[in-house]
């Protein structure tokens, strides 16, 4: 097979972090290659070097057998390489046409009508649907992705790199995208897909290359690959999803959510009429394609979303879960805290919401407790002790408790955050994508922590994306679809297919509460 791109001994570091170490990789002409690896394994960094976003510290890149230096995205385009980034590179206030015309070679005459005509031809060829006058800020995620692909094709790219293209798509949109990718292969183009989803790898690609912790592990033909083989290559050892799941001990009701609806500032109804209960001593999983209201649901309960009138979240504090309930809605997080509602929340955006990146562990411990007491001055002592304790107990790797947490690795950041949240002795613990981007060992450490809380009688709410984990960890699984509760199933008996179906297909009548 002829190589479209050949990487030889590529190394790239950021400060003291090694993102890629001595990676060699071939991309053939006319193939679909999956680049598989866990979050943080250096997939995106590696391909960013081909796209001209980063420049390697050492190593060589060959395009069509010739050594090249790719110093900028422009160099990449001239070599026929186009990358569709996970975070779309589009200008919000520009129309689709303007975005396509952006940065085109100055040789041809500037004529937006011509650009549009040519782009329309591409649309017809691959069966895209695009309103070329629409401004990007008014587009849906999948429309933006389509626009990105048109943009790259317009520039005549022969090698397309897609970074986690399906992360934001519905299954139908994913299938449509895969069809487009196959069409492109039939057209003789090389396509590289960065992903960590095994089933997609098996569904679409010709070959799979695997990275682990920044290093190249190997490449297999997809037809010879199995899920277990790929997993093993990806994580280093065969993973038994062997998560502990103790039987809940006399569960008592801790949270009662009724008629909860949220409309986004853009006027989109992101949550419709949510009803469910969470019990102490249970882990309630929340499944769903990302962007179906999970974030808003947890934020609404935590007091971070404006909720439509009529919705209520009742919190039961007493031992038996019977006594008087406290209303959570209408309070901000501090008021909730001060009202004696013991609720903890590990948000999805760890450094952007849960922690302050520029502060050390001590400062971040203060985030939830700084306002306690009447004094004007901060109590620095107890947060410092707490930081020391968490560092020790959860084995946080950090140069010191005053090192800014943004300098820690993803796993350690999450340990700091989860550690703080459970230190409060919560009655309800909500976590959003608690293991996203973490390595296997840290993930298991997190599952253990959640189970410990469960045994203590805490109502744990676990929003996750990995169905295998949800089915192994949770006692109940609630599935969100289009902002509605699309069913609640028993975690011990439900099948993956059952949950998968609930994630993608809205049931008749919306809420079905078992």
């Amino acid at each position, binding site marked *: 097979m002829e190589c479209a791109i050949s990487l030889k001994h590529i190394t790239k570091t950021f400060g003291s972090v090694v993102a890629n170490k001595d990676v060699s990789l071939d991309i053939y002409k006319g193939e679909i290659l999956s680049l598989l690896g866990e979050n943080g394994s250096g997939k995106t960094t590696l391909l960013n070097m081909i796209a001209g976003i980063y420049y390697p510290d050492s190593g060589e890149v060959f395009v069509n057998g010739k050594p*090249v230096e790719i110093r900028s995205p422009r160099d990449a385009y001239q070599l*026929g390489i186009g990358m569709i980034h996970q975070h779309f590179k589009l200008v919000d206030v520009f129309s689709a046409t303007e975005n396509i015309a952006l940065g085109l070679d100055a040789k041809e005459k500037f004529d937006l009508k011509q650009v549009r005509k040519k782009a329309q031809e591409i649309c017809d060829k691959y069966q895209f649907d695009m309103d070329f006058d629409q401004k990007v800020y008014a587009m849906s995620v999948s429309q933006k992705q389509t626009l990105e692909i048109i943009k790259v094709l317009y520039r005549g790219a022969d090698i397309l790199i897609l970074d986690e293209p399906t992360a934001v798509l519905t299954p139908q949109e994913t299938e449509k995208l895969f069809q487009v990718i196959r069409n492109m292969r039939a057209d003789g183009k090389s396509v590289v897909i960065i992903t960590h989803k095994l089933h997609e790898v098996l569904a679409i690609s010709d070959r799979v290359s695997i990275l682990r912790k920044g290093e190249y592990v190997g490449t297999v033909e997809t037809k010879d690959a199995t899920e277990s083989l790929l997993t093993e290559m990806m994580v280093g050892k065969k993973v038994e999803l062997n998560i502990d799941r103790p039987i809940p001990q006399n569960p008592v009701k801790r949270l009662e959510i009724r008629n909860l609806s949220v409309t986004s500032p853009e006027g989109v109804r992101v949550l419709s009429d949510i009803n469910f209960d969470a019990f102490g001593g249970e882990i309630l999983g929340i499944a769903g394609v990302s962007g179906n209201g999970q974030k808003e649901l947890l934020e609404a309960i935590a007091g971070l979303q404006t909720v439509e009138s009529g919705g209520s979240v009742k919190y039961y504090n007493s031992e038996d879960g019977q006594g008087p309930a406290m209303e959570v809605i209408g309070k901000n997080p*501090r008021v909730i805290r001060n009202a004696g509602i013991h609720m903890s929340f590990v948000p999805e955006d760890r450094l*952007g919401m*849960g922690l302050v990146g520029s502060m050390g562990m001590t*400062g971040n411990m203060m985030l939830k407790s700084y306002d306690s007491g009447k004094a*004007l*001055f*901060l109590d620095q002592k107890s947060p410092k002790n707490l930081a020391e304790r968490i560092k020790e107990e959860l084995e946080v790797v950090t140069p010191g408790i005053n090192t800014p947490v943004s300098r820690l690795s993803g796993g350690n950041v999450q340990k700091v955050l989860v550690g703080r949240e459970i230190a409060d002795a919560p009655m309800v613990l909500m976590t959003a994508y608690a293991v996203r981007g973490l390595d296997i060992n840290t993930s298991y450490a997190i599952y253990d922590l959640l189970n410990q809380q469960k045994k203590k009688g805490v109502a744990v709410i676990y929003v996750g994306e990995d169905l295998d984990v949800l089915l192994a960890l949770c006692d109940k699984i609630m599935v969100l679809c289009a902002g509605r509760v699309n069913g609640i199933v028993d975690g011990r008996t439900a099948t993956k297919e059952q949950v998968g179906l609930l994630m993608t297909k809205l049931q008749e009548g919306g809420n079905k509460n078992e």
Partner: protein
Amino acid sequence: MSDLQVREPFVRIVKRDQAPLSKHISVRALAILLALVLDALFIFFVTGLNPFSVYFVMFKGTFGTATRFSWAMRDLVTLLLIGIALAPAFKMKFWNIGAEGQVLMGGLLTALVMVYWGEKLPGPVLYLVMLLTSIAVGAIWGLIPAFFKAKWKTNETLFTLMMNYVATSFVACAVNILRGQASSLGKLNMATQIGWFPKLFGQRYNINILVVLILTFLMFFYLKYTKHGFEISVVGESENTARYAGINVGMVIMRTMAISGAICGLCGFLLVCGRDQTISTNTAGGNGFTAIIVAWLAKFNTFYMALIAFLLIFLQKGAGEIASAYGLNDFAASIITGVILFCILGSEFFINYRLIFRSSKEGKNDGERG
């Protein structure tokens, strides 16, 4: 396509992890040295004077006599006080470019109270009223842009900038009324000296120096050790985190800007009572802008601010000295200040980033023949 044989970039920029303190100091020292060399060249080519003797004369501008040193301190505390006022706002990433106006409004209220109520109120009450009104009006001047920023995210850089000129108009109007038929407004209450600060160790403005000294410590502790200071840091870092922690972001923005404006207002009060005993559109004298640079370079640490303010005042005084010694003009001060600021601002880069030159990369050149 094969003809695209670009070479590896000559120099690449890489972000530093964290520079050691020695690096911070050496880079800044080099920047100041470079600025002094540039200024020396400038002085030499423009005037033909020996730069070294010029610098010696400059030195005398601040340290020549006790009085000069005292004046330098007077001007230093003005700059420093505004820097102190800006520190909390900047730490919150709120660009308060409106200190000039906030100072003017504080000074204006002080002057009005001094003139119109000076003889009606007993001494201590008069000072209290002047103090409170100037603080209040400064706070309001800071609150207005903060309110819109908190509610609708109105761009505060441009808003506060515009507020300066609204304040200037008010002052111009008041000065016009106060001076009446006279060609200029002399010292207020010249005959009675009501409302002037008493002399402390021979100078009225020594009270200013004292107040600013205290505030330097207070602001340092406010930012570092109080709950408010913590909230300011969190809001400045990430509004989402602040909301998550239950901090009322809008409230913190407004409160902090009220404090920032209030201290500026206080500065106006001190300037009118302690330094000028009058008011004009020049009362703030550009210090509101210079202080922005001071606060920024000191990274909101009030003690560093004192150092930087000292450096700038030293230069200004020195340039004034050159002006009178060599028959130049004291605009030289602005040029010298500008050059120093450029050098220090540029030097930050070498603290935060590292350069990697092509030659420092081993074993790479072999592959470039292709």
